[in-house]
């Protein structure tokens, strides 16, 4: 197992290396001179030259690339052109927001998807099965921003039961320490603010969780059905075991695997979906950060945030694979 993990970790290195080349090339192929972008449209040529020199943009490309990789290895992801804040610092301000959002979305999708899938599988072709199938189909077919804006309209604007945007009511003035607001509010001993930040999570989590919900529901239904027809389930039933026991001991234990795999795979989709969800709900996370950086042509932030995104993505996949291997001992680590 350890050998497997090590091999997978080593396997990620060439991917990150390739990514660094692609991102480096991407930045250099983008129209416009970063130095001129930093200094703005009016800058005098000599100032632009000085800035190019400061940024090392006057060096040969290969040398620039080496410097870039060297900085990366030192954990220096550069600074924003726009506000000069360190990319790493900004990341730690933004990332907790995305983590809170994706975990909430995942909790929503898993918490609702698995029971729904099991319920649908109980009586295939029944009304409830059909209903759940249609709901999950519609779930994967609605663009996130349409669902998000509609939820906002109904629950925040019309019904006034949930807030429309943001992570917390700024008037509560909770000090940000970890930037995980659910934790910060508790650290500050503010149950009112905790509830407020929880309420802010609801709508974006539903919007973001809708696609994984649909997929998890379908997979759960499918794998429960798959297993139901297996011999050992029939044997168990024939032995006269209660339906509850068959369900718990025989069906779910075996139907679990594909569901776990799919849940893991959803994390990647959630990170991608966060880009649009965070924009809709003015949620201060990594997704909005990337969109802002692209809008502002903030090269280092684009470069580094995509790299970080990819790193998280790879790590999540690794964890899923390892978890999968644990759950299914039959898998040989090949």
């Amino acid at each position, binding site marked *: 197992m350890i050998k497997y993990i090590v091999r997978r970790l080593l396997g990620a290195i*060439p*991917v*990150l290396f*390739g*990514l660094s080349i*692609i991102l480096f090339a*991407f930045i250099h*192929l*983008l129209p416009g001179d970063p130095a001129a972008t930093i200094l703005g449209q009016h800058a005098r040529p000599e100032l632009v030259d000085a800035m190019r020199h400061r940024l090392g943009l006057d060096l040969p490309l290969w040398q620039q690339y080496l410097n870039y990789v060297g900085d990366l290895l030192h954990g220096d992801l550069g600074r924003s052109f726009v506000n000069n804040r360190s990319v790493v610092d900004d990341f730690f301000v933004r990332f907790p927001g995305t983590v809170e959002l994706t975990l909430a979305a995942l909790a929503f999708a898993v918490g609702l998807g698995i029971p729904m899938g099991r319920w649908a599988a109980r009586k*295939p072709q029944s009304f409830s099965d059909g209903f759940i*199938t249609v709901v999950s*189909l*519609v779930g*994967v*077919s*609605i*663009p*996130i*921003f*349409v669902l998000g*804006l*509609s939820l906002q*309209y109904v629950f925040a604007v019309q019904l006034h039961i949930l807030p429309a945007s943001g992570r917390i009511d700024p008037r509560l003035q909770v000090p940000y320490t970890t930037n995980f607001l659910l934790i910060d509010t508790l650290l500050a001993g503010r149950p009112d603010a905790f509830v407020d930040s929880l309420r802010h999570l609801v709508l974006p989590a539903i919007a973001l969780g809708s*696609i*994984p919900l649909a*997929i998890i529901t379908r*997979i759960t239904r*499918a794998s429960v*059905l*798959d297993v139901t*027809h297996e011999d050992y389930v029939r044997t168990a039933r024939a032995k006269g075991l209660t339906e509850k026991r068959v369900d718990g001991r025989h069906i779910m234990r075996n139907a679990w695997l*594909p569901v776990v*795999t*799919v849940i893991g*795979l*959803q994390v*990647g*989709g*959630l*990170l*991608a*979906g966060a*880009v*649009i969800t965070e*924009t809709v709900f003015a949620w201060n996370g990594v997704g909005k950060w*990337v*969109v802002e950086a*692209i809008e502002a042509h903030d090269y280092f932030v*684009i470069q580094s945030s*995509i790299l970080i*995104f*990819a790193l998280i*993505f*790879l790590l999540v996949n690794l964890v899923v694979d390892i978890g999968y291997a644990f759950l299914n001992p039959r898998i040989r680590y090949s």
Partner: protein
Amino acid sequence: MATKAATPATVRVPVESRASRGLWRDALVRLRRNRPALVGLACIAIFVFVAFFAPWLAQYDPNKGGLGKTFEPPSAAHWAGLDKLGRDELTRVMYGARISLVVGVVSVTVGLTIGGLVGAIAGGVGGRIDTILMRITDVFLAIPGILLAIGIVAWLGQGLVQIMIAVAVANAPIFARILRGSLLSLREAEFVTAARSVGASRTRLLLRHMLPNALTALIVAATLALATAIIDVAGLGFLGLGPPDPRTAEWGTMLTDSTEALRRAPWLIFAPGIAIVISAIGFNLLGDGLRESLDPRLKR
């Protein structure tokens, strides 16, 4: 793109020992018995029909309106109401089917071609080439699809062609992955081993025996990708990266416009919204149906 990650896991590679023609014929028979797939096919048929015959079906000009008629609610003359510029929303949805069809089909075809080529080479040739190609694929797979698409549109500029390229590039690595996986698992399949034992050449083995069988998984993935392509284009439109001519009757752009007018004319969201959902459902149902028909072990 959010569903993309699910595809590889749920696609099972058929391990068929019969000749490939039989596989397809069987699949067709099974597909005909698959009710949801037929519903999906019907949705797509309507979608394609509308796209082809939009000028005959629609009563109005998609680009002609009148500012005086802004945001007229649905009526007998205008079933879906009039948009901000006084244009008939239903007409625009019909014309929009054309663009969505073209963007979806072209981007998926391009993605399929690139991804298929890479996957076929990697899976067919194997060895060092396989390793290199798959590492490159991994690099692209490591970037969330929508980010990749945003980046490409930001880089190439706005335009329908650029959007198609962006969606294609976002899809290609997935296709490459799937095809390679299928090919690898087929290597040891009985009929391949049999063909090999009677002395079939490597190329012949790949082209005549392995590819046709491996393509099934790819076709399923492509069908499902068509559904996401339509949604992705809408997402790009939402982020302000849609087609540069805002008069283009494109569903994503229309949907984004209607969300901007949600307060004044909430009904406008229905026509493009339903169109997107129905076509996406159509491709999703068909994709599922195809998967089930092509893999007889999956009985639902």
